[in-house]
């Protein structure tokens, strides 16, 4: 193997610094005893304490979790079916419908869903957000599941069939356990995408249905006061996603890359 030159190392180190510095600053300022986000004054936990009493933020966190769980369950079921169908048969419409929402800028889907829900005279809120989240998460789950299926040894299923197992039994006994890591990874991914989503929620949210990202946006957009609280909630959110990622990387390391 050829040695990487020092120049490359230096450049790469700078880029890593570029990637991490901003987030480190957010975390540091979440412990900073000043509400200006400008200079270090002293260490404090008060923004976290404030956060625990901030009903609006906690309600937004609740919404985010509820939407995330429901999205995760429904999108995993539908996405697994889609991934399996795409692996098993040559389909035209389904792959297009599964992949397009991932490929186009999110704002397009947000706007289309907004018109759709308003046309149906549906009250925008948790339900409309959840329905929208499911729609864009299906694709991610489907891709992860399909790639897992593609890596699977088909001969195992054939062997089971030769030994007299029905297709359903073969699926339950062989295929499902084999692709389970993919499904779990897909589910976690759907959950993460949902709790992280801003753009589509922005267009499909209604009264009193703010999610955490929406709440963060409105506070960041209107920097009146309480900004360090945003640092605190951001830090907690990073911790949460970080732990989710650790779980994913344990369950199915390949899934981390499949989503990108």
């Amino acid at each position, binding site marked *: 193997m050829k040695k990487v030159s020092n120049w490359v190392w230096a450049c790469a180190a700078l880029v890593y610094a570029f990637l991490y510095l901003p987030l480190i600053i957010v975390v540091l300022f979440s412990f900073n005893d000043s509400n200006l986000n400008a200079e270090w004054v002293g260490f404090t936990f008060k923004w976290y304490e404030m956060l*625990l009493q901030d009903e609006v933020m906690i309600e937004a966190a609740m919404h985010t979790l509820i939407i995330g769980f429901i999205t995760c369950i429904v999108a995993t079921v539908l996405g697994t079916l889609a991934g399996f169908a795409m692996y098993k048969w040559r389909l035209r419409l389904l792959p297009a419908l599964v992949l397009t929402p991932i490929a186009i800028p999110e704002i397009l889907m947000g706007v289309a869903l907004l018109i759709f829900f308003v046309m149906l005279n549906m*009250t925008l809120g948790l339900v409309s957000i959840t329905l929208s989240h499911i729609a864009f998460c299906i694709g991610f789950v489907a891709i992860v599941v399909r790639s897992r299926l593609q890596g699977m040894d088909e001969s195992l299923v054939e062997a089971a069939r030769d030994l007299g197992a029905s297709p359903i039994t073969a699926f339950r006994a062989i295929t499902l356990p084999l692709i389970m890591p993919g499904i779990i990874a897909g589910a976690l991914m759907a959950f993460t995408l949902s709790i992280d989503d801003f753009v589509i929620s922005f267009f499909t949210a209604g009264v009193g249905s703010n999610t955490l990202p929406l709440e963060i946006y409105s506070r960041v*957009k209107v*920097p009146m006061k309480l900004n360090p609280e945003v640092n605190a909630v951001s830090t907690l959110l990073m911790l949460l996603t970080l732990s989710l990622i650790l779980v994913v990387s344990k369950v199915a390391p390949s899934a981390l890359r499949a989503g990108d």
Partner: protein
Amino acid sequence: MKKLLLALSLLAGMAQAEDVLHVYNWNNYIAPETVKRFEKECKCRVVQDYYGAMEEMLAKLAAGAKGYDIVVPTGFAIPPLVKQNLTQPLDKAKVPNLKNVNAAFLNTEFDKGNIYSAPYSFTTTLVGYNDKKIKELGIDATSWAVIFDPKVLAKIKGKVTVLDDSRELFAAALMYNGYSANSTNPAEWKKAAETIKAAKPYWAAFNTQSYIKELTVGNIWVAHGYSNDMFQANQDTKAAKRPFGIGYGLQKQGNTLSLDSMVVLKNAPRPDLAHRFINFMLDGKNSSELTNMIGSGNPNAAAAQFVQPEIKKISAVFPDANSMKGLQQLKDLQGKQLRDLNRLWTEVKTAK
């Protein structure tokens, strides 16, 4: 994390047992103390959402936002709400305090007989400025030139914000050009749009929400905004012991006056709480708190005795008969006019 989750589950239990009133109001237009007292009195929780411009509120409601009980539109936004069948008539038996409102602010052309709306407070739209900087630079802030004239703006480039509000900004540009704030003459609108485009490169941002803070911190020296916000910014500079204050006054070419009223929405989940809230806010003492805390103009006659005399003296907050002459309320635009204005607005926002 555990603690947070615990708090979450506790709150989930609480939220269901509570009565909740949803208020959709201008940002920075109610004192938190007032909200707390109302919550105590009605044993309910007030959930607030905010907007920075009438267009934003109307667009949000047109885009299907449901679930608010009360909105606080400026006069010209009442007719569109009524015509879209979004409002419900006030049950006057439940708002006896409506009698407290100064007759001059009742029965406006926007809502004859106040069938739908109860006046909340009023503001003037004007220029607020960092008094030290403006004095140093020798700029005259009593003219709209301070936000529109490139010659003046050259000295304060990047230190100016204007309202992200098509009606207010166009009104200011129209008045700067010597036209009526309510002109619908396409040629005059065009001229106003040119004025805005010429001044735009000097502005730091279109800002309806955070100029109070930007002024207080000193990032911005001149802001187009509402009188109560400037009052607030000035209070904040004092509290933060800044070496400057925020000055504000009416412009010689004229200003807009916004009378903001409370309206109960047709599909309000809790019209009962909404009426209680309106009646509460029309109480002289409570209404005066609004003025004393946030510096808004007060249409409530019963509040007058509780309003701090220093605030009454500020002509931008309580315009005297003479300055009243220069003030105009914006009128409702319809159909094609509205579309044309929106197009011009898109154009100026997009222009370089």
